[in-house]
């Protein structure tokens, strides 16, 4: 129900306070989700919660501000102005709310001001681990794909410092993730940092290596790296390890760029599922969820459904959430049915039920108008900020019990970075929406074919605005207008056709 104003806003106060502690944070932040992209409306709603004495609620409000501004940039920087000062607050939950809010609002912007306010936190010995972890993550998001040396160094030092202290803590995985996000899709530029990461302590060293590798080659389809990662997954180490989880996610991240690679990866993941260790089995549903995000494919749906009834409860939890991911924003009836069954099956298990509810929320995201797919523009371009948001959530889900089902469930809000309307909206030369007939059908791959074959098949004619499902394409059904771009997605400006004759 994101993006539309809720009828419960009148009695908003009450439902937020029905929760306890960190539950209130998520509840307040959800206001931000409801007013997604509506900066004025959202800020007005959240206004009353900034100075409230109740710390979790304040934290949620700051986070909500960040969410509202997600993807919207502006010269006056309202998010930074409102929440910037709270990053140094005494209360760590308020700090985290502010830091996360900034990370979401300014993802990809490479804002120096943020760097100077968040970097000191990384090197602050007195700062608690969770604050440092979120700071690293937010910095990674703000500088996503930039390979910024300064930020990389700060995060690396933080990793080395924290090394000896609390390597077992769940949130420590956000530090390598923040580092990895800096090199998202940048392939070889990560080499230098990867070398340095070999000096880290053993517990985190491999995790860091896998994360860096998977982030650097994300979306490239590099076969050699996929093989490397699969080799890692094939090992059976004696001790309990955590690094194979990111390796599995890495396979999905690298292979997801095009159809063939994606199908091959899905098959490989099935094999990995069979012979893999425990921590691998927990990561496979997440990887499947990433490969088919907002694209409910039958075979993947069936695999995930089977896994959601697995005896290992963590596998069941990740599989449930992945069901939500693959159907995100599609309102798919089959998945809805599966999730309803799961909810009655898991009535006694609060944790699993929680996952089912999250999945159901994802399924009906934006009433079926949104998508989480980071690929756009005819599946050619990969949005780095969107991918960053999704990958963060997946890494957090690798340790469900401590993060999502623990105190830090608001990590789910990172998905806001990936939410986009899956529409085609035609506007005229004055940027006012107009309605024209379009044909929407399955996209056909016409590369290398002779002549000028049709690019869509099995189409129906609708009036814009139309919704485009995964794998669909639209084409104009009228000669009255000429689109200014051959790629018909999102906002399309139409110019009048001077040669058009009314029949």
């Amino acid at each position: 129900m994101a993006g539309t104003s809720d009828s419960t806003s009148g009695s908003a106060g009450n439902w937020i306070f029905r929760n306890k502690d960190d539950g209130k944070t998520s509840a307040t932040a959800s206001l931000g989700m409801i007013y997604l992209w509506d900066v004025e409306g959202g800020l007005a709603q959240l206004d009353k919660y900034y100075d409230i004495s109740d710390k979790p609620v304040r934290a949620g409000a700051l986070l909500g501000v960040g969410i509202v501004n997600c993807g919207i940039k502006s010269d006056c920087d309202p998010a930074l102005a409102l929440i910037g000062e709270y990053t140094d607050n005494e209360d760590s939950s308020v700090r985290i709310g502010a830091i996360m809010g900034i990370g979401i609002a300014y993802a990809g912007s490479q804002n120096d001001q943020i760097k100077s306010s968040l970097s000191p936190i990384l090197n602050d010995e007195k700062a608690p681990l969770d604050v440092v972890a979120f700071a690293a993550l937010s910095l990674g998001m703000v500088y996503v794909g930039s390979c910024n040396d300064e930020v990389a160094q700060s995060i690396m030092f933080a990793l080395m410092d924290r090394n000896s202290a609390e390597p077992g803590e769940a949130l420590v995985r956000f530090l390598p993730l923040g580092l990895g996000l800096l090199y998202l899709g940048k392939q070889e530029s990560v080499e230098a940092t990867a070398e340095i990461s070999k000096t880290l302590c053993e517990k985190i060293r491999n995790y860091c290596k896998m994360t860096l590798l998977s982030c650097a080659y994300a979306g490239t389809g590099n076969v050699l790296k996929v093989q490397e990662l699969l080799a890692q997954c094939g090992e059976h180490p004696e001790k309990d390890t955590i690094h194979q989880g990111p390796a599995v996610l890495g396979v999905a991240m690298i292979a997801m760029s095009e159809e063939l690679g994606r199908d091959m990866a899905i098959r490989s993941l099935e094999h990995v599922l069979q012979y893999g260790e425990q921590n691998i089995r927990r990561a496979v549903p997440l990887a499947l969820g990433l490969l088919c995000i907002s694209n409910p494919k039958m075979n993947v749906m069936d695999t995930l459904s089977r896994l959601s009834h697995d005896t290992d409860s963590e596998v069941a939890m990740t599989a449930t959430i992945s069901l939500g991911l693959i159907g995100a924003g599609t309102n798919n009836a089959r998945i809805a049915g599966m999730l309803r069954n799961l909810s009655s099956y898991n009535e006694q298990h609060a944790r699993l039920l929680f996952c089912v509810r999250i999945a159901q929320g994802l399924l009906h995201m934006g009433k079926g108008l949104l998508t989480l797919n980071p690929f756009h523009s005819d599946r050619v371009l990969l949005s780095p900020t969107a991918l960053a948001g999704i990958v963060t959530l997946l890494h957090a889900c690798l340790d469900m019990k401590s993060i999502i089902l623990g105190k830090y469930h608001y990590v789910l809000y990172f998905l806001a970075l990936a939410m986009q309307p899956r529409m085609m909206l035609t506007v005229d030369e004055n940027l006012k929406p107009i309605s024209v007939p379009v044909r929407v059908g399955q996209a056909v791959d016409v590369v290398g074919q002779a002549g000028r074959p049709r690019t869509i098949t099995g189409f129906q004619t609708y009036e814009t605005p139309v919704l485009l499902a995964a794998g669909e394409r639209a084409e104009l059904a009228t000669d009255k207008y000429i689109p200014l771009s051959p790629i018909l997605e999102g906002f399309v400006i139409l110019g009048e056709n001077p040669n058009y004759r009314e029949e």
Partner: protein
Amino acid sequence: MAPAPDPNSSVGGGGGAKRDQASTKVKAPKKKEEDLSEEDLELKQNLELYVKRVQDPNPELQKTALESMSQEIRASTSSMTSVPMPLKFLRPHYGTLKDCHQKMAESDLKKLLADILSVLALTMSAEGERESLGYRLAGSGGDIGSWGHEYVRNLAGEVAVEYTIRQVQESSMMDLMDLVRQIVAFHMKHNAETEAVDLLMEVEDLDPLLDHVGRTNFRRTCNYLTSAAKYRPWPDDMVALDIAYMIYMKFKAYPNALQIALLLDNMQYVKKVFTSCTNLLRKKQFCYMISRHGITFNLDPEMVEDKDDRSMLQEIVNNIKLNEGYLTLARDIDVMEAKRPEDIYKVWPSCGIC
């Protein structure tokens, strides 16, 4: 078997014996000597005559013989659904002609013979010998297309193999690259853009493509380049995308060029698209494309001169319009009403959009 017509009487002796043999067998191969039609037999005899003449020391005779032979071959190799008659008849003489070529002195005639041998090598040469290529490089280097499609395709395949071998040996590629250019020009003219791009990728030099793309085929070429880039390792994929970008810019297909620029994550290219395109409306469309990509992009005076225009375009890039558009969509599809959690938990399969 039908009774053979008169012209076959000269080879009737042998044919007769064969006919006897044939009649005793249940199945008999169709193409027998006496089955040849009048023209075919004449052609065969002519060709045999030419071959004899080529071995003649008199250059005049050689010349006419060679020219007539090449005439026959050219006329027949434009389509290769089955092996053409002249090539078939010349098969037994391939060895003779090869020897002849070797013994000949350097001259235009030798080059002409080399051309012919190159075509014959299509069907005759052993696997992996690359004789066709060898003779082509020794030949006159004339219009490659006149020998037919199949010939060019075969040559392209041999060039690719030769390239890798020469790379290992680190020898000169000059003659090879000239030939590549000729082949590429031929393919591009005949709607075989994918084959041209394939060949250029094999020889790791996509630049000649820019000279040969035309308005009719640039989209297909770039489509192929973009798709091929997905399967190539770094840095080859960047090279392919670079060329695609330059082709799109050359033909002023700015939205596609912008897409490639964003794919390459090259802000210089993005800037160049803005500065090259003068239409303000188009620039607005570019801004929408960039805003969907989610990167932070600041327009400067070089890209958009007018201050008001620039602030309007910057607004679009900053995604300020997103909320409006989204709510318009929601209103149009009539989903503005919020759902209650209970509705989600108990939604029946028949309900739901999409």
